[in-house]
């Protein structure tokens, strides 16, 4: 991300009364001279350049607005912008004086790809009133150069094409001191590609190792780590180890200590964690993150340590862990609450801890309660609600017996019955023929004609039947036994009573 007019845009936001088409320049001291440190688009159009003396600029453009520059404020604002950009990716850093660097690895798929992500970030920054140019490339160096010196305001360069794109960049894009760039121009170099094609040793002897480093960074031959900004509002606990650790017991011990630290920080803010990230940085500079979620905000260190402890076997320490970080990425307010009272009713047992433990188990697909739905159709009479949702106090009508097991899909059976409203005399289910000794019914269930068109006239007649051995089944006939429009008149078994 390149913000070409960051300082002036910031000033314009602070002073909305300033007319938008007035040229604006920010001046500050450089040694003993007053020079232009930043100029907006209109001022640049009239010929004002950064580094020009303030008096000269004033003479050049009539009606030029001049304000004092605030480099420290700009820098701090850039850091705040970086914290804001944490919503796009966990690794974001300010690239002072006028840029942001965002590591999109593993985050772009959330926005539908690299280009839509870049567009989305750039649009949001532009909507806030800041000029922005953005580029996405395989290396920080190449992206930095493309954003500032590339042709398009939004450029996406796939990883494989990064070297080619970097080669076409002008020398000024290489993040070299101005003096070096000028000297190279004198020697006849124009682009980074030309420079890279030269023998390395003489260049390094002449201009120092920084030149080679910047070239390698742009072409991706040297790793350039991004030191991410930290959200000061986010509670974290971090521990760096002098000796890398790898044993699960050791990791567990430090997770326990960090959990206590994290919970103390949360308590100081009156917060509870809903989601905690455990991040390990390995010796070989790779990282892994495991997350645990909580059903309600929580800051019980022992419980947190236990939840995280179950994620430890999923961590791969590799050659050893250098730093271990716990961060509460999602929090909620959690005030102190009286738990024990000798006056009122006995306290309700708190099962939220149990539910957290169960939900964080890898094999568990869901933890829920079941609540009634006002529907006559049996499979629609239940719905799942959150396990910790407040009690509804509802239940199903008790007048009609319901089977303990409901088949996911009614199974077709062969049945002999007198139409329209007698239970079958006998039926065959899963190859076993059963004679019906007793039967109850029909319980007529109409389709939900108000909600679903195909069920306008559909009918099911349910019977509870008992065979000679005493086993009880719930069977139904599709249709009312008289009108063929109401159903196929075939028989199905839907449930088993105990």
């Amino acid at each position: 991300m390149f913000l070409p007019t960051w300082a002036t845009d910031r000033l314009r936001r602070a002073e909305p009364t300033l007319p938008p088409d007035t040229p604006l320049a920010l001046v500050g001291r450089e040694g003993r001279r007053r020079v232009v440190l930043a100029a907006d688009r209109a001022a640049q159009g009239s010929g004002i350049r950064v580094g020009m003396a303030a008096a000269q600029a004033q003479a050049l453009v009539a009606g030029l607005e001049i304000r004092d520059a605030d480099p420290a404020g700009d820098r701090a604002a850039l850091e705040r912008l970086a914290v804001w950009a944490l919503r796009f990716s966990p690794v974001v850093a300010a690239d002072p004086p006028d840029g942001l660097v965002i590591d999109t690895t593993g985050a772009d798929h959330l926005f539908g790809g690299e280009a839509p992500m870049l567009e989305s970030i750039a649009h949001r920054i532009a909507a806030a009133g800041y000029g922005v140019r953005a580029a996405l490339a395989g290396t920080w160096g190449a992206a930095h150069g493309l954003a500032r010196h590339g042709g398009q305001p939004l450029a996406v360069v796939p990883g494989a094409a990064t070297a080619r794109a970097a080669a076409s960049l002008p020398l000024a894009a290489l993040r070299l001191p101005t003096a070096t760039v000028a000297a190279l121009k004198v020697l006849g170099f124009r682009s980074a590609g030309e420079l890279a094609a030269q023998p390395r040793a003489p260049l390094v002897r002449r201009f120092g190792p920084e030149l080679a480093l910047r070239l390698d960074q742009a072409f991706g031959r040297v790793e350039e780590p991004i030191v991410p900004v930290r959200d000061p509002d986010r509670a974290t606990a971090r521990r760096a180890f002098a000796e890398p650790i790898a044993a699960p017991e050791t990791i567990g011990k430090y997770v326990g200590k960090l959990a206590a630290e994290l919970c103390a920080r949360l308590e100081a803010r009156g917060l509870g964690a809903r989601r905690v990230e455990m991040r390990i940085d390995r010796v070989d500079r790779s990282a892994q993150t495991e997350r645990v979620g909580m059903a309600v905000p929580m800051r019980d260190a022992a419980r947190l340590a236990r939840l995280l402890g179950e994620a430890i076997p999923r961590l791969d320490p590799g050659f050893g862990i250098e730093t271990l970080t716990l961060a509460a990425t999602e929090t909620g307010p959690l005030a102190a609450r009286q738990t024990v009272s000798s006056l009122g009713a006995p306290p309700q047992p708190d099962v939220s801890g149990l539910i957290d433990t169960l939900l964080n188990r890898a094999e568990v697909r869901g933890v829920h309660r079941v609540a009634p739905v006002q529907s006559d159709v049996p499979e629609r009479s239940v719905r799942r609600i959150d396990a910790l949702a407040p009690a509804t106090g509802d239940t199903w009508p008790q007048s009609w017996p319901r089977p303990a097991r409901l088949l996911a899909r009614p199974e077709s059976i062969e049945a002999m019955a007198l139409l329209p409203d007698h239970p079958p005399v006998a039926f065959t289910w899963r190859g076993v023929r059963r004679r019906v000794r007793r039967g109850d019914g029909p319980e007529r269930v109409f389709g939900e004609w108000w909600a679903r068109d195909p069920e306008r006239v559909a009918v099911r007649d349910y019977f509870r039947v008992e065979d000679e051995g005493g086993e009880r089944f719930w069977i139904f006939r599709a249709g009312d036994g008289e009108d063929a429009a109401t159903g196929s008149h075939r028989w199905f078994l839907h449930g088993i009573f105990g």
Partner: protein
Amino acid sequence: MRSRSAIDSLRAEIGRIESVRRRSAAVLPFGIALLDAHLPGGGLAQAALHEVGGTGNAAVDGAAAALFAAGIAARTGGPVLWCHARADLFAPALAQAGLAPDRVIHVEAGDEAGVLACLEEGLRHGGLGAAVGELARLPMVASRRLQLAAEASGTLGLVVRRWRRPGDAALFAQPTAAATRWRIAPLPSTPLPVPGVGRPRWRVELVRCRGGEGAAFEVEACDEQGRLGVFADLGDGSAAARGTHAAA
């Protein structure tokens, strides 16, 4: 009489050695004198694991076994954790066995190992009235873990055994660490003077009981408070549940 008291004191002594960690000897009576008389302490031990299974088709669907377990869990009066790998339990039936939907937390545990792990978590927690798990296999070691967890927290543990094939029910004979083992089979329902299905009846067999003897009973299935009923079957002249001793 003297030898009787000696045996009692010996029993108490053995009980102390066997379960030092057992917090309470609280029991949950069925409310049926004949049944409770067969259980040590006069009811189901609260801080213990109990197994419920079926025979024939009922071994596969486990419907009666689930209702029997629901009836017991309903009478504990706390939240109930119900762990299963197959989601075919129909909650309205639990409500009709006395277990209101607000009290039941369902856990879809994925597979058998997941059910075991979740059940153990539930038993260790201590705030639940009962924890129920539906399992086909219950190895000795796993059952021992569950039993210890139940003893430590005082939570009633119930395992509903249900198998893939009716023949697998023979595995029910293998020993586990559960305090009691029940086999529930459906019987023809209470006859009504009119056509229709009356209150369901079960043959409830106490196959194994730690510190007690096995027996079989014929009872009426759980009512809406989770209580079993005794027959008042005037047809064959007996006005009490018919209990027969069985070799355990």
